[in-house]
C-alpha cells in the first residue's frame, strides 16, 4: 500500500515578485503624474524609429524621457538621445525581456514628477515580454507591413496583453502587398476591440492620430486619479 499523500493548497502567482514591483512602479508613476507607455514588437519592426519621431514631436510640448531595452549595445539609446530627451539604455545580457525591477533600477536618480511621458522600449521579442507587467499605463504592440498580416495569429499572447496595435512602415505597404483588411481582422480576432493605428515614421503618416490618442489617454488617466 502506498503511504498516504496530502494535497496542500498554496495559490501563489509565480510572477508575484514582478507583479509586486510593477504595482509599486504604477503607484509611483500615478503619484508623479507621468503617463507611461511601453513598446513591444519583433526585432526590426521599427520601435526605435517610431520612438525617434514621437519623442522629437513631443519634445516641445511635454517633458518626456525614454528607457530602451536590448540584450547588448547602447546603439538605440544613442539614436534616441539625438532627440535631446533624457534616455537610458537597459542592457539585459542574455535575458529576452524587461522585468519590472530592471525598470525600477534604471529609474534611480530620475525625478519622475518632472516628467509628463515616459516611454519604455522593450527588447525586440514577441513572446517573453507578454508575461511581465512593467507598471505601464499603455502597452503598444508594433508590427510592420513586411512581417505578414498573420503576425497577430502567430503571437496571440503578446497582442492580447497589449492595449493598442500600431502597424508600421506603411510607406512600404504597396511594395509588400500588404493586405490591410486581413491584418485588422487578425488583430480583432486575438484582441477584440483593440484600437489599431497605421503609421509611417518615414513619411509621418498617421503619427498625428497617435499623438491625439496619447493626449486623450493621458488626460483620462489624470481625470481618473
Amino acid at each position: 500500500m502506498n503511504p498516504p499523500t496530502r494535497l496542500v493548497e498554496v495559490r501563489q502567482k509565480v510572477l508575484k515578485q514582478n507583479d509586486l514591483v510593477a504595482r509599486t512602479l504604477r503607484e509611483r508613476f500615478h503619484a508623479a503624474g507621468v503617463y507611461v507607455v511601453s513598446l513591444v514588437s519583433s526585432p526590426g519592426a521599427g520601435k526605435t524609429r517610431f520612438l525617434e519621431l514621437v519623442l522629437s514631436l513631443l519634445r516641445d510640448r511635454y517633458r518626456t524621457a525614454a528607457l530602451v531595452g536590448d540584450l547588448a549595445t547602447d546603439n538605440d539609446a544613442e539614436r534616441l538621445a539625438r532627440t535631446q530627451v533624457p534616455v537610458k539604455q537597459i542592457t539585459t545580457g542574455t535575458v529576452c525581456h524587461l522585468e519590472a525591477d530592471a525598470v525600477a533600477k534604471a529609474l534611480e536618480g530620475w525625478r519622475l514628477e518632472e516628467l509628463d511621458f515616459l516611454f519604455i522600449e522593450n527588447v525586440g521579442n514577441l513572446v517573453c515580454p507578454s508575461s511581465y507587467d512593467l507598471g505601464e499605463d499603455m502597452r503598444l504592440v508594433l508590427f510592420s507591413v513586411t512581417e505578414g498580416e498573420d503576425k497577430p495569429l502567430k503571437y496571440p499572447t503578446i497582442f492580447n496583453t497589449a492595449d493598442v496595435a500600431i502597424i508600421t512602415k506603411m510607406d512600404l505597404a504597396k511594395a509588400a502587398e500588404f493586405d490591410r483588411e486581413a491584418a485588422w481582422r487578425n488583430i480583432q480576432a486575438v484582441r477584440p476591440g483593440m484600437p489599431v493605428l497605421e503609421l509611417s515614421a518615414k513619411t509621418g503618416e498617421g503619427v498625428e492620430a497617435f499623438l491625439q490618442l496619447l493626449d486623450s489617454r493621458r488626460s483620462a488617466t489624470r481625470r481618473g486619479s
Partner: protein
Amino acid sequence: MHELSIALGILDVAIEEAERLGPASVLAVHLRLGPLSGVVKESLLAAYELAREGTPLEKAALVIEEVPVQVLCSACGVERAVLSIQQLYCPECGSPPARIDGGRELEVVALEMEP
C-alpha cells in the same frame, strides 16, 4: 524562451511554501496555466526538469493543469470556452466578447506532500 526563469520562479514559490509547512517531502507541484500566460507547457516542463536539480524539490514532479479561456458573449449573454486563442469571440455566434475570463493564470495552486 523565458521558461527557465518561470521554472525557477515556480521552485522559489514551492520551496518557500514547503519550508513553511515543515518536514515533509514534496511529491509534486501543481500549477494552473492559462494559454494567454505566454508560457509554453512543453518548454516549461523541460526547463523545470533542469531547474529542480540540486534543490530540495529535485524529486518533485510538475503537474500542469491547463485552464481554458472563457468569453462572455455580448450577444448571447452566455459564457463559453473559446475554440482557440486565435479566435477570442463567441464560438456559437461569432460576436465579440463583453468580457474575457481567465487565460493568464500562472500560479502554483497546491503541493502534493508525503506524509
